């Protein structure tokens, strides 16, 4: 099994691998990917306009995310990082709820507690995102251990980046998963950068996938720009997981086309040429071409796809911006299930000061 770590799955597939996505599903995938791209483009603008406070784009990672999400079942649990908006959408998180979170308004499911991109969608089994890198990896393993007790036929999937392979939780999580043979898929989107640090300086491991060998289970490298290949790799891993054959590490090789986040200026550390080269393999373009070649898409339809995504975005945004801001008193909610006496007092104290007192300087 360890040998699999050296195998690169290509879109032509392998003997025994599940069949590829139908043209219909590929068409679906394309729509999700376009929607994700549209959200990215729009949000970068919204942030510049001060309408949202921060944004971390996923451009370049759409195929990896949509492909992975396509391979999952509703009962599987997703443990995402901050960049997995594409996965959330495919799993059914509404555009409105996404934008509510980006704004942090009164209808935001996380109640304005978190920065943009730090979603939680309980109904979609999309677990709450935190900023510290890698911490969700051990959670995915623990939840998978719980599934071993009472969640037959389910799996967990942890999403993380190339940088996260250096985290404590990567090591602990993969080791526990190996020892307890948990139904876990470790899905690493190697987008070649951890902010300004290139992949080559993150670790000397020839591939990230092969790190699984240190924990006694297989690792797979997959072309993350190929939605079909990604989907098949995750399907395979999921099949192994629910069959009790243990975890798999998948390295989806992609490229972060945009800045790390709206706080980042990538010109400081990488050349335009490198990005242009990566753009030549833009997953949206690759999939579009494939659909065009299959006669399933033409330019006019493509325009409509983009147009529909843009309208959906605008409509949701308009609604979300009408929602009231969060109530000041909600600051004290959800620290615990119920308020402690001290928190009650602080809530009163805070109400007495009044929101009118305004911010610090």
């Amino acid at each position: 099994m360890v040998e699999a770590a050296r195998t690169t799955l290509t879109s032509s597939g392998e003997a025994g691998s599940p069949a590829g996505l139908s043209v219909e599903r590929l068409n679906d995938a394309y729509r999700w990917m376009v929607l994700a791209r549209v959200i990215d483009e729009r949000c970068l603008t919204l942030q510049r306009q001060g309408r949202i406070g921060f944004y971390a784009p996923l451009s370049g990672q759409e195929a990896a995310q949509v492909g992975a999400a396509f391979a999952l079942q509703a009962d599987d649990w997703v443990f995402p990082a901050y960049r997995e908006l594409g996965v959330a959408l495919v799993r059914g998180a509404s555009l409105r709820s996404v934008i509510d979170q980006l704004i942090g308004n009164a209808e935001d499911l996380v109640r304005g507690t978190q920065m943009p991109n730090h979603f939680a969608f309980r109904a979609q089994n999309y677990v709450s995102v935190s900023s510290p890198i890698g911490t969700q990896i051990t959670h995915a393993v623990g939840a998978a251990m719980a599934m071993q007790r009472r969640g037959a036929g389910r799996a967990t999937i942890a999403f993380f980046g190339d940088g996260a392979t250096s985290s404590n939780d990567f090591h602990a999580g993969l080791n526990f998963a190996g020892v307890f043979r948990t139904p876990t898929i470790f899905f690493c989107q190697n987008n070649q950068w951890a902010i300004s640090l290139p992949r080559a300086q993150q670790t000397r491991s020839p591939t990230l996938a092969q790190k699984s060998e240190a924990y006694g289970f297989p690792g797979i490298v997959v072309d993350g720009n190929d939605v079909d290949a990604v989907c098949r790799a995750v399907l395979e891993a999921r099949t192994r997981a629910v069959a009790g054959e243990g975890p798999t590490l998948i390295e989806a090789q992609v490229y972060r086309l945009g800045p790390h986040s709206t706080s980042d200026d990538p010109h400081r550390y990488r050349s335009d040429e490198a990005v242009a080269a990566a753009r030549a393999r833009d997953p949206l373009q690759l999939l579009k071409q494939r659909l065009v070649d299959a006669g399933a898409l033409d330019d006019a339809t493509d325009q409509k796809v983009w147009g529909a995504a843009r309208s959906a975005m605008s409509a949701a945004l308009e609604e979300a911006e009408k929602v009231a801001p969060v109530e000041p008193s909600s600051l004290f909610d959800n620290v615990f299930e119920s308020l402690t006496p001290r928190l009650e007092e602080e809530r009163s104290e805070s109400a007495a000061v009044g929101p009118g007192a305004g911010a610090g300087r």
Partner: protein
Amino acid sequence: MTELTLVQAVNRGLQEAMRQDPDVLLLGEDIGVNGGVFRATEGLQKEFGAERVIDTPLSETGIVGSAIGMALYGLKPIAEIQFQDFIYPAFDQIVSELAKFRYRSGGQYPCHVVVRAPYGGGIKGGLYHSQSTEAYFCHTAGLKVVIPSTPADAKGLLLTAVHDPDPVMFFEPKRIYRSVSGEVPDGDHRVPFGEARVAREGTDLSIFAYGAMVPTALEAAEALARDQISAEVVDLRSLVPLDERAVVASVEKTGRAVIVHEAARFCGFGAELAALLAERAFYSLKAPVQRVTGYDTPFPYALENVYLPNAARIELAARASLRAG
């Protein structure tokens, strides 16, 4: 009722919780076939199997991280950290994740984990088998922090912790694991959080303590009583939520406070108690607040008896308080 030592009471509390609810499970290092290095989990793997009493690899990060994942999914894991001194590799998971899950998900993902760890000195354990690190966790919003000082409370607070919907740090005074014993109710027994226990009533001054320092405080109170000094000893039991009313009420009665803990003084839990008194019992206080604590050094080996508060130091502080004001 059964007469048990404190560590036996912990063991019975775990057993009771696991019998009550199949979703309760334990994970940690050497807790299975070995029964825990202090024998707190003795016999439990035999009764409940290796799938509910899980020996993990040597990673506190993994123990707490995976316990969180289990809790998110709906189980009720109890994670053991072998010594509180080894909790730091799990600190990120505890502070960044466990404490904040409910909050940051807007209540969608409560995270019901109990983290147990033996703490404190007096066993000749030196720097890394003696620490009292409760203040770190008390300062971390989103965690409850509980420390029993009697066998009955050990079982009763533990069962409350297991049924509490919030994350609970449950710290056990290993120094009195075996030296203290007492009657413990059989079956389901719960001691609520947020209620201090007056371990000894008194009128001249209040001694606040928790965990292994409670018997030491009582010893000091005994000694003071010989000189007709009536010291009240308040066992806090739950540090978060803190029974602030009981703390203030005791000082309103006595006018004097001696605060005792093993941890280093600077920014220790005693600082919060003293601050509370300076804010809320200001007009009752007749003398400066006294803290009797570990010194601001790492925990030593050869000199642990110099470092640790003892009855003599508490007595001295009490007498200083009585002389003042």
